[in-house]
């Protein structure tokens, strides 16, 4: 069954054993009372690897510093400190620090210090390559660090490094993961499934299992925020999705018993979640660049409370999603807002690829049901 107030995977506290019910209760409270309990803060757009699927911008055509001289600078440390205070006042507890590569930001540790002093529970999202021994040990000193989510793009160096376009990155990522574990820091491997690594999904899961790590599988690849769509070439094909749902991702394929009620349809964005970009834009989600305001121009609380963008999102009903509302496959759909927004330019739009994936999920679920019926009849007969 679907939860009443879905939580974006990147914003969730890392798998607290036994704590899921409590987390679900808190998220529902935040959703109902519209408290920004979960905030993603993009520390920088800089990154030390050049992933082909990156949603920020095309890292092959623009410099690693990501600025071309025509855009606003990234938030300064003083600005981030001020924003953290505003988030605290607004009710935020769970803070996700992301990038670009968060560890490439000179502000990371001063921000971690301030976040600890203010009482935030912090999750770090990273590609893992900069987790040198001293860095992992330093992270372990933060009592408020709930864990690190590390992105993985393959089970072998050849596949992973072909996506990051940096030789040796897989080795450095896995070394970083092992250093975190050695420091008893919770690690979640976020396996991004793409056209060139789909054949390694089972191996990636085994890699995580072998280290006792939780895994998040993500097949969502979207167009980029700079308007380019070269990233889409990395998307899994429909044939690959079908193979994955019949095979290594069978346990994660949407099941038929999922109920999509009016209450369950909206996600937690703009109600219990939001994101702040490296340049201070406040968005419903870090991967949905629909700008509700900018913390350089307005206090966060004012944007959260009264921005027309957030008010519009909060007022949306299922019927406002013209393609989704009548869709017979919505029980099997991830309803990926990021893909929908980046494909259609509209928060209530759709991404035909996501629609196709939902159709495939339905077909696979029906096959499974039919097979179970045959098996049951054979046993009974």
């Amino acid at each position, binding site marked *: 069954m679907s939860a009443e107030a879905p939580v974006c995977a990147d914003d969730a506290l890392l798998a607290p054993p*036994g704590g899921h019910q409590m987390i679900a209760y808190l998220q529902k409270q935040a959703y109902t009372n519209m408290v920004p309990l979960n905030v993603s803060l993009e520390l920088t757009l800089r990154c030390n690897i050049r992933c082909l699927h990156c949603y920020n911008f095309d890292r092959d055509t623009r410099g690693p510093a990501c600025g071309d001289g025509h855009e606003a600078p990234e938030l300064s440390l003083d600005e981030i400190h001020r924003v953290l205070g505003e988030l605290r006042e607004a009710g935020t507890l769970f803070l996700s620090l992301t990038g670009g590569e968060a560890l490439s930001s000179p502000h990371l540790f001063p921000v971690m210090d301030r976040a600890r002093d203010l009482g935030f529970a912090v999750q770090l999202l990273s590609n893992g390559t900069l987790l040198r021994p001293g860095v992992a040990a330093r992270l372990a000193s933060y009592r408020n660090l709930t864990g690190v989510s590390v992105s993985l793009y393959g089970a072998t160096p050849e596949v992973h490094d072909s996506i990051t376009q940096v030789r040796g990155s897989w080795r450095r990522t896995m070394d970083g993961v092992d250093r975190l574990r050695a420091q008893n820091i919770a690690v979640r491997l976020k396996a991004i499934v793409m056209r060139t690594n789909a054949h390694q999904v089972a191996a990636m899961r085994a890699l995580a299992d072998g280290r006792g790590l939780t895994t998040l599988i993500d097949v969502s690849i979207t167009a980029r925020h700079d308007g380019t769509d070269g990233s889409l070439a990395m998307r899994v094909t429909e044939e690959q999705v079908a193979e994955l749902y019949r095979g290594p991702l069978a346990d994660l394929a949407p099941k038929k018993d999922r109920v999509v009620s009016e209450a369950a349809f909206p996600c937690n964005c703009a109600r219990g979640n939001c994101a702040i970009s490296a340049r201070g834009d406040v968005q419903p989600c870090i991967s949905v660049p629909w700008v509700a305001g900018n913390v350089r121009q307005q206090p966060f609380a004012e944007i959260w409370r009264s921005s027309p963008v957030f008010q519009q999102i909060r007022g949306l009903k299922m019927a406002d999603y013209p393609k989704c509302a009548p869709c017979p496959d919505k029980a099997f759909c991830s309803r990926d807002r990021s893909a929908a927004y980046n494909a259609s330019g509209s928060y209530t739009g759709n991404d035909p690829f996501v629609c196709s994936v939902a159709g495939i999920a339905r077909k696979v679920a029906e096959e499974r049901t039919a097979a179970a019926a045959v098996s049951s009849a054979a046993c009974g007969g």
Partner: protein
Amino acid sequence: MMTYTRDPGVPHQKLDEETIVVDPRTREVHLFNETAARIWELLASPATVDDLTAALADEYDAPAAELRASVEETLGQLRDKGLLASQGGA
């Protein structure tokens, strides 16, 4: 006399009328009742059992002995959960 203070690194927040305290080490999420929430708030600064009991006496219409027992019970639970910083004699 022992003084107590909350571990300054433990994440916490108020949500509506409730106080949430998260312990990343144990992966536990605690929801405090009103008294525990008030004591947690007071423990932002070092305090003795007497200090805490006196502060609650100003706010609650209850016998001092009852308040003291409540303070001691709450401190015991917070200590058992590892949510208090090091304590020392004063």
